[in-house]
């Protein structure tokens, strides 16, 4: 068992697809919350293999997209300082702040480095005591324990030149915000498996009950995603709304107790601004008082920085499935993958970019659903 190729088997995928086809009787709109799942869906072409009744709405589960503008501006201000080595996950380097991104800070002489883990940034801090080393601590619940540990270790080992710029968000408040929208079309959720590996599933039954919506904890390999879809559709067809765990090999009900203890020690739940949305109550974390000295916002005195968001595109509506990408006035005209107005047009797995590409692939009205594009070549 390698826990990888076994869950990519095409023959088993066909069986799952047959089972979904046999179960579904009418249209359902499901949302996968996590960007990693969106990636897997596009990467394997899963969206085109599902029966036409099943619509997958790609949710807002991409930390890169939801990190607010003023936090990016804070990162840019800190990274521009000559005494700072600014470390980040790779995918944050292209996210624009007000007029600049980390790439441009780097090109202007800033010491910006891509690392794989926050512990790598801590190691850089230990090796270069003459510099301030800052790690950009973004991400959802999956990533928070790693960043918490880096700060905890910095305090324990006395690495005073290390600090964390914290912008952590949590999934359940986002699900609540989506469900409370008066226009919400989402009827079932594929909950993010690795978030639940850390947090467990304790926060979800109340959401399932309150909004009468199935929540199925789902993994990331193709078979995992198909199984998540199958179980969600089965609940919907039966009129149920429960929490199910379709990823039991990596998710225990109680989550990871050691990680939860560390989160409770290092962070405290706080209101967080989401880019393009505004503040959602209790939707994120900040450093607890005991760790405040490692907070880069305080250390570099950027707490009061504010930024005006530029005019928004309509990707919020697209993210919720309220608007088909091609129904947006800018789609394919002002907004293309080469000149994107919003993140949904930026990467290949963005809903708008996917539609744009498939429209080119299969011109005509067929491209409207994005499913007819399967018969290429």
């Amino acid at each position, binding site marked *: 068992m390698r826990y990888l190729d076994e869950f990519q088997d095409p*023959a088993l995928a066909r069986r799952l697809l047959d*089972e979904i086809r046999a179960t579904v009787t009418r249209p359902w709109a499901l949302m996968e919350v996590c960007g990693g799942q969106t990636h897997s869906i596009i990467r394997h072409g899963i969206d085109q293999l599902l029966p036409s009744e099943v619509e997958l709405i790609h949710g807002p589960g991409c930390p890169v997209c939801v990190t607010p503008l003023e936090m990016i501006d804070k990162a840019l201000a800190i990274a521009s300082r000559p005494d700072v080595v600014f470390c980040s996950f790779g995918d944050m380097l292209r996210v624009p702040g007000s007029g600049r991104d980390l790439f441009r800070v780097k090109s202007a002489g800033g010491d910006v480095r891509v690392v794989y883990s926050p512990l790598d940034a801590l190691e850089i801090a230990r090796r270069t005591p003459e510099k301030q080393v800052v790690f950009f601590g973004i991400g959802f619940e999956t990533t928070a324990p790693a960043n918490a*540990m880096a700060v905890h270790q910095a305090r324990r080992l006395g690495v005073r030149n290390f600090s964390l710029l914290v912008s952590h968000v949590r999934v359940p408040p986002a699900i609540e915000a989506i469900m409370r929208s008066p226009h919400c079309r989402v009827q079932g959720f594929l909950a993010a498996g*690795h978030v639940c590996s850390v947090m467990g599933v304790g926060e979800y039954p109340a959401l399932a009950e309150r909004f009468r919506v199935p929540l199925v904890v789902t993994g990331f390999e193709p078979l995992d995603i198909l199984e998540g879809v199958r179980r969600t559709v089965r609940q919907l067809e039966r009129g149920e709304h429960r929490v199910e765990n379709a990823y039991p090999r990596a998710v225990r009900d109680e989550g990871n107790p*050691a990680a939860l203890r*560390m989160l409770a020690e290092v962070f405290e739940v706080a209101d967080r601004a989401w880019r393009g949305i505004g503040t959602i109550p209790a939707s994120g974390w900040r450093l607890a008082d005991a760790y405040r000295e490692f907070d880069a916002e305080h250390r570099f005195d950027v707490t009061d920085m504010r930024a005006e968001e530029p005019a928004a595109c309509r990707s919020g509506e697209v993210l919720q499935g309220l608007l088909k990408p091609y129904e947006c006035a800018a789609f394919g005209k002002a907004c293309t993958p080469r000149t994107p107005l919003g993140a949904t047009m930026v990467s290949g797995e963005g809903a708008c970019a996917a539609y744009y590409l498939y429209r080119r692939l299969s011109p005509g009205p067929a491209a409207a659903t994005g499913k007819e594009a399967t018969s290429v070549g």
Partner: protein
Amino acid sequence: MCLAVPGKVVGVEERDGTRMAKVDFGGVVKDVCLAYLPEIEVGDYAIVHVGFALQRLDEEAALATLELFARMGALEEEFGDAWGRAAAEAGEPEVPR
């Protein structure tokens, strides 16, 4: 948010008071922090995200999931009707949340 991949623990050591592992991702070996999985042993598989082992992979659960998929098709082939599917679902553990 969730790019986490399964790997096999091939070595464990203390470093600066923290439990660290060498984890093999199919021919690629990386240092991984075990602080959150204190019980994990050499030979176990774990889900790893940005240098941290987040959860031990449960082989029994993985096999059960795969078996479920395989049975799903098999019953359909065997019975090819709603009864077969009903039987499949009856035999399928309603996994607790």
